[in-house]
């Protein structure tokens, strides 16, 4: 097996079907999008100029970055906690953590978004319960706003944030933690000054994956944002399908892809790909 994979020719052959598929289904159509961004409605750089002046586009970009940043921080923090349990807990704890990580993968993103609506809406489970115990008199605005979007996206992305962290925690030498304890460091201090810094590459990888995913979210913000918290992917959709302005939609897409590409390049400068699995 090793012999086959270490052979460059063999590796190229094994990857060929995937590369061919991505080329035909993704890269080639995307070149068409790039073409539109320079030619519709009139040839030139007009669409990119419009990006710089259009207030709506800019506010959506900023909102997207803000939501992505918040979702990243919350997801990585939550994923860190669950990964610690998954990798270093007792056998029973591991099993429970593993269950919590894997179950979300079996439920579609659409189902989950509607599930959150059922929980968070004005007459949803949380508001009716809080009202019934007299904790609040008016329902809290938990959905159809940025909060709902952040909750739904975080829930979706935590499992993706787990894997780079788990990889970093698994490769950590236990003796280093023992050494810290033996030198007089408490469990808490050892966690913050040794364990967390030693899993830095996992944190970076995890944050990058969540952030990049967040930028392209469509279904979750569309449903949980209720049209009031539009993110960039939804804006592109609106430009293409509702106010036919294909040139502007294409230009936004190109900018998004370039931005994500730059982020990925940055990621791979700091983290080796195998640390992400």
């Amino acid at each position, binding site marked *: 097996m090793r012999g086959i994979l270490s052979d460059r020719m063999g590796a190229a052959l094994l990857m060929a079907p995937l590369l061919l598929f991505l080329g035909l289904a993704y890269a080639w159509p995307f070149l068409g999008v790039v073409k539109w961004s320079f030619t519709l409605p009139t040839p030139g750089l007009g669409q990119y100029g419009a990006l710089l002046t259009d207030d709506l586009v800019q506010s959506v970009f900023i909102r997207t970055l803000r939501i992505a940043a918040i979702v990243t921080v919350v997801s990585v923090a939550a994923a860190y906690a669950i990964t610690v349990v998954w990798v270093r807990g007792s056998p029973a704890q591991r099993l429970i953590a593993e269950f919590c990580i894997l179950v979300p993968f079996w439920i579609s993103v659409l189902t989950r978004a509607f599930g959150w609506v059922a929980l968070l809406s004005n007459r949803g489970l949380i508001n009716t319960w809080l009202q019934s115990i007299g904790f609040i008199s008016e329902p809290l605005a938990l959905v159809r706003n940025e909060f709902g979007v952040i909750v739904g996206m975080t829930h979706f992305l935590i499992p993706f944030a787990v894997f780079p962290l788990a990889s970093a925690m698994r490769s950590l*030498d236990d*003796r*280093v933690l*023992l*050494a*810290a*304890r*033996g*030198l*007089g*460091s*408490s*469990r808490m*201090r050892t966690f913050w*000054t*040794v364990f967390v*810094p*030693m899993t*830095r590459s996992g944190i970076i990888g995890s944050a990058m994956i969540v952030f990049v995913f967040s930028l392209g979210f469509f279904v979750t913000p569309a449903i949980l944002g209720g049209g009031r918290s539009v993110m960039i992917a939804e804006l592109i959709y609106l430009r293409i399908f509702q106010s036919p302005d294909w040139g502007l939609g294409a230009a936004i897409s190109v900018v998004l892809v370039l931005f994500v590409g730059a982020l990925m390049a940055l990621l791979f400068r700091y983290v080796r790909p195998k640390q992400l699995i």
Partner: protein
Amino acid sequence: MQQPGRAAEIKAIGIGKSFGSFRALDNLTLDIGRGEFLTLLGPSGSGKTTFLMILAGFVQPTEGRLFSDGTDITDRPAEQRAAGMVFQGYALFPHMSVEANIAFPLKVRKKSAAEIKKRVGEMIERVGLVGHEKKLPSQLSGGQQQRVALARALVFEPGVLLLDEPFSALDKSLRGQMQAEMKRLHQETGTTFVFVTHDQSEALALSSRVAIFNHGKLLQVGAPDEVYDRPDNRFVAEFLGEINMLPLKGVRPADNGSTGLCEDRAVSMHCKAEKVRGDAILAIRPEHMSIAREAAAGENGIAATAIASTYLGAATKLDLTTRQGAKVTVSVPNEVAAAALSKGNSVWLTWPAEKGFLLPDGGQ
């Protein structure tokens, strides 16, 4: 382990440790003296590392009590015992510079920045790492990493320094150098050192006392020459170096020790025949036997035939078979070995009475 700068005195009483049905350590009682250099020696799985981990507080014994300077520390967690520890593979903090690694135990103890700077500086000088302060462990050689680990474990002046096979990853020449360095650090700091190894020559060379473990039991503890020259049992005798074992019959006390019959010839030993009577084993180290044309009356000797030799440079290892088929190895001057082999026929093996010792027949 409590007062910094003062060597600790440790007392282990009836320490045992089971992992499920596996008995890792059984009823160990041992005193470790203030400032001594004690080596725990044994094959892997013998319990020596388990005992070290119990001393450090990383492993909780199933039974028994552990005292440091008279205080019961059995239930005290590792971070409160604060024994200095050097791990196999060093376990340096990979994200911290050399300086930060060594400063870690002082920072934990909330020392002032000025004091930390001073003591880290002294320690770096003492272990010869000047100029490497800002480097990360991954930028250092194995020997340098070893020095960082030693400095980090000694900088807070622990009462005891625990070392878990610290030299196993080093090549032979570097190993010798680090051994010398460790001996020097032991003398300079005066701290109690407890050192784990499976290398018997390392144990004999470094320690003030050696404790030999096998199958979770402490078999013997004593000064290097004591355990080497007067092992209590067959395992200790064999583990500490090559040894010849000859069956002995009719062992009984005599004026000056004991006597017995070795291949129908009377031999005498200086050691007492307290533990053994009747059949026993006579054990003699290869370097204590000589080749002779014949043995004089009253001299310890046995007839044998030389069968093979191995040239070792300074000496030659000669393999012989006795008349009754026992295999014997001796270490002799090169020309003696050549002569014995060229003759091809019977020679005599002789040894002084004080160099032979008795072991129970067939026993461990």
